[in-house]
C-alpha cells in the first residue's frame, strides 16, 4: 500500500527552479533514500514533504489524505501533518532536557502524564539512552544527540519519518555502526522512512530503494542493486560507483552491443544509450570488473602498469593504454605490460 505519494512536484525560489516535476510513491514499511549531489533538490524535496517549503505545483499525499495540493490551494501546516523529521544538525532544544525534548511532541498531543512518562521511557530505551533522560543536549556526544533526535521524531508514532543527512555529523567509525543500527530500528518498528544523503554507500547500506536526483529531476529509482548494476545514464553510473571511462566513438553496433575503440583496440560493450554509429560515446566499466589476464583475446587490451597503490585489503593499479588511463583492483603485479579483460556485459556504452 502506498504511504506517501508525490505527484508532479515543482518548486522555485524566485526565478530559480529547484524541483522540476518530481513524481514518486513510497510504500508502507519501505526505507527510501533520496540521493544526489548538493543542489540536486533532495533536501528541498524532503522539506516540501515536511511542509517547511511551499511548492508551486503538484500534490503530496500521506496515506490517502492529501496534505499539499497546489491546484486546490491546500497546504496543511507542518504541525498538522504529524510527520517525524530528524534534522541534519539534530536541532535539539538546548533549554530542555533529553526527556523534555522527546516528551514535547506528546505534551502537544495532550497525552496523560503517566502514559507520557512511559512512552518517553520506552522510546529512549529503544535508542539505548534510557538512563540519560535528565541530561541536557550539550552534555551528550554527537552520536547520543543523534539518537535523541531520532527518539524525538519517533515518540508519537508518525506515519512517515524523514531524515535529513542523519549520519553526516558523525565520525567515520560511528557512521558505519549507525547505518546498521538505524536500518534495524526502522525495520523493527515497521516504519516508512525517507532519508536524504549525498553518500551512495550510505544510501545502499540503509535503503530498500534509492531515488537518484539531479538538477531537480529524478534520474533513476530502484533497488540499490538496480542502481549499481544497471545505471540508466552516465551520471547514474558515475554517481553510484568508481569507474573507468573510455572516450571514443561508436564503431559498430550489433544485437544490443556497441563497439568502441581504446587506443586502436576494439571493445564491445552494452549499448545503454542507443547511440548511432560514429556518435561520440563513453565506455564505462567499474574498477572491480576489470581483470588482469594472461594473454590476448576478445575485449582485451594491453596496458603499461604505471603505478600501484596499496589499500590494505587489495591493491589498486593504474595502467596506461595509449592516451587513456585504466584502473583495476588486484594482487601485486610486476612492472611492464599486462593484458586487461573488460567483459562486454560489464562495459556500458553511453
Amino acid at each position, binding site marked *: 500500500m502506498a504511504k506517501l505519494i508525490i505527484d508532479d512536484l515543482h518548486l522555485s525560489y524566485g526565478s530559480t527552479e529547484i524541483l522540476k516535476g518530481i513524481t514518486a510513491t513510497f510504500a508502507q514499511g519501505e526505507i527510501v533514500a533520496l540521493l544526489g549531489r548538493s543542489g540536486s533538490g533532495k533536501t528541498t524535496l524532503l522539506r516540501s514533504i515536511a511542509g517547511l517549503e511551499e511548492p508551486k505545483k503538484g500534490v503530496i499525499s500521506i496515506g490517502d489524505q492529501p496534505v499539499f495540493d497546489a491546484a486546490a490551494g491546500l497546504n496543511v501546516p*507542518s*504541525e498538522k501533518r504529524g510527520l517525524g523529521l530528524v534534522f541534519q544538525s539534530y536541532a535539539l532544544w538546548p533549554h530542555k532536557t533529553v526527556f523534555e525534548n522527546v516528551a514535547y511532541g506528546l505534551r502537544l498531543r495532550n497525552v496523560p502524564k503517566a502514559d507520557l512518562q512511559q512512552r518517553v521511557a520506552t522510546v529512549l530505551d529503544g535508542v539505548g539512552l534510557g538512563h540519560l533522560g535528565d541530561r541536557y543536549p550539550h552534555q551528550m556526544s554527537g552520536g547520543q544527540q543523534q539518537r535523541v533526535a531520532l527518539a524525538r521524531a519517533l515518540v508519537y508514532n508518525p506515519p512517515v519519518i524523514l531524515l535529513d543527512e542523519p549520519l553526516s555529523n558523525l565520525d567515520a567509525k560511528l557512521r558505519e555502526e549507525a547505518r546498521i543500527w538505524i536500518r534495524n530500528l526502522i525495520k523493527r518498528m515497521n516504519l516508512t522512512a525517507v532519508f536524504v544523503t549525498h553518500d551512495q554507500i550510505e544510501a545502499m547500506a540503509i535503503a530498500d530503494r534509492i531515488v537518484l536526483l539531479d538538477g531537480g529531476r529524478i534520474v533513476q529509482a530502484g533497488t540499490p542493486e538496480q542502481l549499481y548494476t544497471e545505471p540508466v545514464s552516465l551520471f547514474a553510473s558515475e554517481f553510484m560507483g568508481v569507474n573507468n571511462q573510455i572516450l571514443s566513438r561508436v564503431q559498430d553496433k550489433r544485437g544490443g552491443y556497441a563497439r568502441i575503440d581504446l587506443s586502436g583496440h576494439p571493445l564491445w560493450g552494452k549499448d545503454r544509450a542507443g547511440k548511432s554509429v560514429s556518435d561520440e560515446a563513453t565506455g564505462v566499466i567499474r574498477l572491480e570488473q576489470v581483470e588482469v589476464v594472461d594473454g590476448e583475446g576478445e575485449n582485451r587490451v594491453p596496458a603499461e602498469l604505471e603505478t600501484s597503490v596499496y589499500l590494505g585489503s587489495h591493491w589498486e593499479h593504474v595502467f596506461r593504454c595509449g592516451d587513456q588511463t585504466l584502473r583495476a583492483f588486484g594482487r601485486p603485479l610486476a612492472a611492464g605490460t599486462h593484458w586487461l579483460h573488460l567483459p562486454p556485459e560489464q562495459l556500458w556504452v553511453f
Partner: protein
Amino acid sequence: MNRATRIAVIVAMAIAVLAPIGLVVYQSFLDGPFFQPKISFTLSAYEFVLDDEDFFDALYNSCIIAFGMTAIAVPVGALLAFLMTRTDLPGRRWIEPVILVPMFVSSVVLAFGFVVSLGPAGFVTLWFKGVFGYVPWYLYSKWMLIVIAGLTHVPHIFLYTSSALRSLGSDVEEAARMTGAGPLRTAMTVSLPMVMPNILYSAVLVFFLGFELFGLPLVLGDPEGILVLATYLYKLTNKLGTPSYQLMAVVVVAIICIALPLVALQRFLLRAANRYVSVKGKAAAQKPVSIGVWRWPAAAMITAWLLFTVVVPLSGLVLRAFVSSWGEGVNLLDVLTLAHFRELMEFPNLTRGIVNTLLIASVGGALSVGVYTVLNLAAHRWPSGWTRLMDYLVLLPRAMPGLVAGLAIFWVFLFTPFLAPLRQTMIAIWVAYTLVWLAYGMRLVSGALLQIGPELEEAGRIVGASPGRVSRDLTIPLIKVGLFSSWLLIFVTFMREYSTGVYLLAPGTEVIGSLLVSLWGTGAVDLVTALSTVNIAMIGGGLLLMSLFGKRSHG
C-alpha cells in the same frame, strides 16, 4: 504567530510611528495650534521660519558642529580602537570599560560637568589660574563646543571599529606580514581598508548625532547665544510668548528632512559594512602587535582623552554636589556638605522624578523590551512585503531626535480624545521613550533572535506545535538571556534619556533628565549637580549589574 496577528502587529506599529509624524506635518501647514476651533491651511509658518535669521544661524551652527565633531571623533576613535584591540598597549584591560562611559552618561549631565570644572568659575579653571596665572581656554566658545562634542562622541566610533577589528581574524594580518609588510604597513594596507566600511558607517552615525545634539549646546552654547537646530526649537517655545505650535512643527519638519536621508545612508552603509566582516578569516586567538616605545605616547594620549572627557567633568560634577561653596582660597575639605541632597529631598517633584526615572527604566524598560520582542516576532522568518514595510517604518522614529519625538507624542496625546486623560501620566513618557528607542531596541532583540537556528523552530512545528506555541515554548525561552541583557541596556538608556521628556514634563511625569533641563534654566546649580550625581550613581548601578551579568553568562 499566525498571519493575521503578524499583520495586526505591524499595522499597530505603523500607526504608532506615523501618527506623530503625520500630526507634525499637518500642524506645520496650519495658522494656529491644531486644537483651536478656527484654523485654516497656510504656508505662513514656513514663511516665518524661513525668514528668521536665527533659524539659518542655527542650521549653520548645526552643520559646522556636525562636521567638526566628526572630523575629531573619527581619527581619535579609530586610532583608539586599533590601539586597544591590536597592540600591546599597557593597561588595556582596565581602560576598555571606561572608554564607553561618555555613551552611557547623558550629554546634558556631561555638559554640566564641563561647566562646573572648566567654566569661567570652574574647579579646574580656578586651579589652573592659581598655578599659571592665566586661563588659555574659554568654555563657551563655538570651538570649545565642537571639541567637546567631538571628544565625547569618540566611543561611538570606537565601538563599531573595535568590534569590526575583533571579528577580523588575525590571519589576514599574518598573511600580510608573511608577504613582507611591516606592522604599520599591514595596519594601513590590510586592517584599515577592511574595517573602512565600519568606520564610514560610524562616521555617518556621529555626523547624524551632531545634528541631533541638544544637551551640550543647550548648556554650553547658551551663554554666548550659540543656537543649533534643537536648541532653536526649544527656545522657540518661549520666543513668542504664546505656544507657536505651527512654527515648532516647521522646525521639526526641517529636522526630519535633514535626518531622514542620513538614516537611509546609515542603513545602506551598514549593509556594506557587513560585507567584509562576513567574509572574515578564522577568528582565532589574536596576537597583539608590539609597538615598542610608542606604547607610552599612545597610553598618554588615551589617558589625556579619558581625563578630559570622563574624569574632569564627572569628578567636578560630583565634587560640586558635595560642597557648599568654592573659589580662590577655599579649602574644599572645609566646605564638604550633604545639604544639596537634603534640599533635593524637600522638593516633592524632584523625589518623584527620581522614583519615576527608576520606574520608567526598570518596569517601563521591561515593557518596551516586550514590545520590541512582539514586533520582532511579527516579522520573524516571514519574508514578505509587510516585513519590508516594517524595516522602513522602524527608521522613521530614528530620524526624530528625542526632543522632537517628545513634542510629537505630546501633541498626539493632546489631539486624540481617548488618549488625552493619559497625557499627564507616565504612560505618555513610556510611549515616547519606546518610540524614540524603537530602532535601537529592535536591533537588540533581533540580534538575540538571529542567534537561534531556524531548524530549532522548524523542529517544533514538525512535532506538532502551532506557530504560537513555537514562539512561547521554544523561541522566547531560547532568547531569554538575550532579552535580559537587552533590558539592561534599555534600562541604562532610559535612565540617561533627558530630551524626550522635556515637552511632556508635568506634575506626575517628572523624570530626572527633563527635570535637569528645566532646573538648569532656573539656575539652581546646587540642585542640578546633586540630581546629576544621583543620576550618575543610578547609571553606575545599572552598568555594574550589566558587567556582573556579562561575567556570569560568559562563565
